[in-house]
């Protein structure tokens, strides 16, 4: 007997959030109510053809040293040029050391990658912010702070956390190196239509919970695959009450549940944040822009392909226990037992994660000792994150033997923090105050975990070896990271009182 099974999209398990369809979806017609993401998408279609992906115009292309060298090479080899260097911006972040930045980069291969970017941006006339420049920083921190990230734009970067920029109501997503080359050459990108997904967080957050806890709770709900094939829109009272920086933290981690992008409709909070930033529109342009931005909301009656609803009043401080960001629990909980998972795949993954993480089921998270604390990354290295951590550190002392790194997201964040005296608070408490960059988020520079070391990190990925080979990463908010540095085990600021 010969078995014939139809494509998986017809066989998705009942109740599954996941639809693997890669067939082009039909775009909504002119009069139909549209979602935020559909509106921004439609505004950028350069060319549409039946059965083909849409050709979308790219408003802003962010470039960094890791995913660009092969793309620039491709441009040169094919005799093409960069179509719009004036819509492209470049910085060095992944490889840069966070100490002694007045000296050349010691790691030769890192140095070569950074030098290659400097040469490429020079050759093609792209603005580049080198190490030591106050505008240099993590690529997803500098776009927003320069005012280059604005509502309704399409923004791409050879980096999966480009979703961060969606906090402004931009359609922003990560692309691969071949696509970087495509954007450099054409200022467009070929994209098959995506599904739409709404994630509504109702109610009001309890005192002590932060944007990071919101997104970790969402990950606990959706798992690592719940957003695959969709653009997520975060909505509801909890999201609306977040600051722009909190919204960036939430959108930053959209890719961790597999979403193509995460977006939040622009509102007064967005406009107030943008007004007066260096690249924000001015005068009549500002009025025209705001008038347009106000239309960028999901229409009444628009339908989402998937919907997730969370009760924000139940979101307490969260911490990951495993080796993917969906393996997350409340800090008040115990390390889960693999037996708690009905799905054999999840059970298997839990077993492997506990072994790698060196954890025993049933141990209260509050009793797990930590030896390293990292406060930084494009998830949590902006000024409000540093303020939240400093508020906890103030007048306290880091636990003996604890290694701590506080790494601002950019030169401007560092400057602002120092103007507010936050550096002094950190240093007095025993934290290490560093220069801007990605740092221990992915350990491409000298900041690494050693085998078996355990960190509380404000970054976005707890994959095996992410922060150094054999290192064990737990994702937390800046407030929890700071409290943990002081307590020596996972703790909330409340626990220190």
């Amino acid at each position: 007997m010969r078995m014939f099974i139809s494509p998986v999209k017809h066989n998705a398990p009942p109740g599954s959030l996941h639809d693997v369809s890669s067939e082009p979806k039909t775009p909504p017609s002119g009069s139909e109510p549209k979602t935020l993401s559909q509106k921004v998408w439609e505004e950028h279609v350069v060319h549409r053809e039946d059965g083909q992906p849409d050709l979308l115009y790219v408003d802003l292309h962010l470039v960094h040293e890791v995913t660009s060298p092969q793309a620039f090479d491709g441009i040169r080899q094919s005799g093409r040029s960069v179509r719009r260097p004036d819509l492209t911006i470049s910085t060095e972040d992944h490889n840069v050391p966070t100490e002694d930045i007045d000296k050349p980069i010691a790691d030769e291969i890192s140095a070569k990658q950074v030098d290659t970017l400097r040469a490429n941006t020079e050759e093609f006339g792209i603005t580049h912010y080198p190490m030591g420049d106050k505008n240099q920083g993590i690529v997803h921190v500098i776009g927003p702070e320069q005012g280059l990230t604005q509502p309704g734009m399409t923004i791409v970067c050879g980096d999966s956390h480009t979703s961060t920029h969606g906090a402004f109501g931009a359609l922003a997503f990560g692309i691969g190196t071949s696509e970087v080359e495509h954007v450099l050459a054409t200022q467009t990108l070929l994209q098959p239509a995506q599904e739409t997904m709404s994630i509504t967080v109702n109610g009001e957050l309890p005192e002590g919970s932060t944007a990071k806890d919101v997104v970790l709770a969402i990950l606990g709900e959706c798992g690592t695959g719940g957003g695959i094939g969709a653009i997520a829109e975060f909505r509801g009272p909890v999201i609306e009450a977040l600051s722009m920086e909190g919204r960036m933290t939430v959108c930053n981690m959209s890719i961790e549940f597999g979403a193509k992008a995460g977006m939040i409709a622009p509102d007064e909070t967005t406009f107030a944040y943008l007004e007066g930033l260096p690249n924000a529109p001015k005068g009549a342009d500002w009025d025209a822009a705001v008038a347009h931005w106000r239309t960028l909301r999901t229409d009444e009656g628009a339908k989402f392909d998937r919907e997730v609803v969370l009760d924000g009043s139940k979101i307490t401080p969260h911490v990951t226990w495993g080796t993917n960001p969906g393996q997350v629990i409340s800090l008040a909980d115990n390390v889960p037992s693999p037996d708690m998972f009905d799905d054999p795949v999840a059970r298997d993954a839990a077993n492997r994660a506990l072994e790698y993480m060196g954890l025993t089921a049933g141990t209260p998270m509050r009793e797990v000792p930590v030896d390293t604390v990292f406060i930084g990354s494009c998830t949590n290295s902006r000024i409000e994150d540093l303020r939240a951590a400093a508020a906890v550190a103030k007048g306290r002392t880091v636990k003996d033997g604890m290694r701590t790194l506080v790494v601002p997201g950019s030169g401007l964040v560092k400057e602002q923090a120092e103007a507010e005296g936050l550096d002094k608070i950190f240093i007095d408490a025993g934290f290490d105050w560093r220069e801007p960059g990605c740092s221990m988020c992915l350990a491409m520079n000298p900041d690494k975990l050693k085998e078996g070391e355990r960190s509380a990190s404000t970054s976005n990925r707890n994959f095996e070896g992410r922060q150094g080979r054999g290192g064990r990463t737990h994702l937390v908010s800046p407030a929890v990271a700071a409290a943990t540095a002081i307590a020596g085990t996972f703790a909330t600021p409340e626990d220190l009182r």
Partner: protein
Amino acid sequence: MDPVHIVQGTAVPLDRSDVDTDQIIPSDWLKRVERTGFDKGLFAEWRDDPTFVMNQDEYLGANVLLGGPNFGTGSSREHAVWAIQQYGFAAVVSSRFGPIFRNNCTKNGLVAVEVTPEISDQLMAAVQADPTLELTIDVERRTLEVPALDIEVSFELSDAVQHRFLNGLDDIGLTLQNQASIDSFESARPAFKPITR
């Protein structure tokens, strides 16, 4: 990229879920500025372990990588696709792929075959039991066939990607055929949009 029509051969069973791009190619390897030489970095942290499946003689020379669910989640690094390809794999099979990884596969001619969890489990067990089991992935017919198991399943591959795979076409060249549309779109962009200098 080179055209691909049919991938025929044996498979390596990598029986783990959530194999993310940090596992496929650890970040140390991302420092290179070349596009080749990534084969040695493939699963670098696991390859030191002599019991790791890719170190088993019976799986040498396989050209299909059989992964668990959620294969290729995580970062946008295309290096993950280059590493898999340069090691000698022409196709990857999983019940669910990380979306950026899957898209990157389409840019390089690596065939990403998404199957149901049942088929994936069945293949995994069969290849573990018999490393010589032959698989055929046909891009033209969009099918995965394993004659010894009497399996023939179809998989999703959009017409656009299939066309490029079969003809080995480069996206940029195709897009530049629409240069006039890009020019006219560009000239109508609102004045308030920012520039970077």
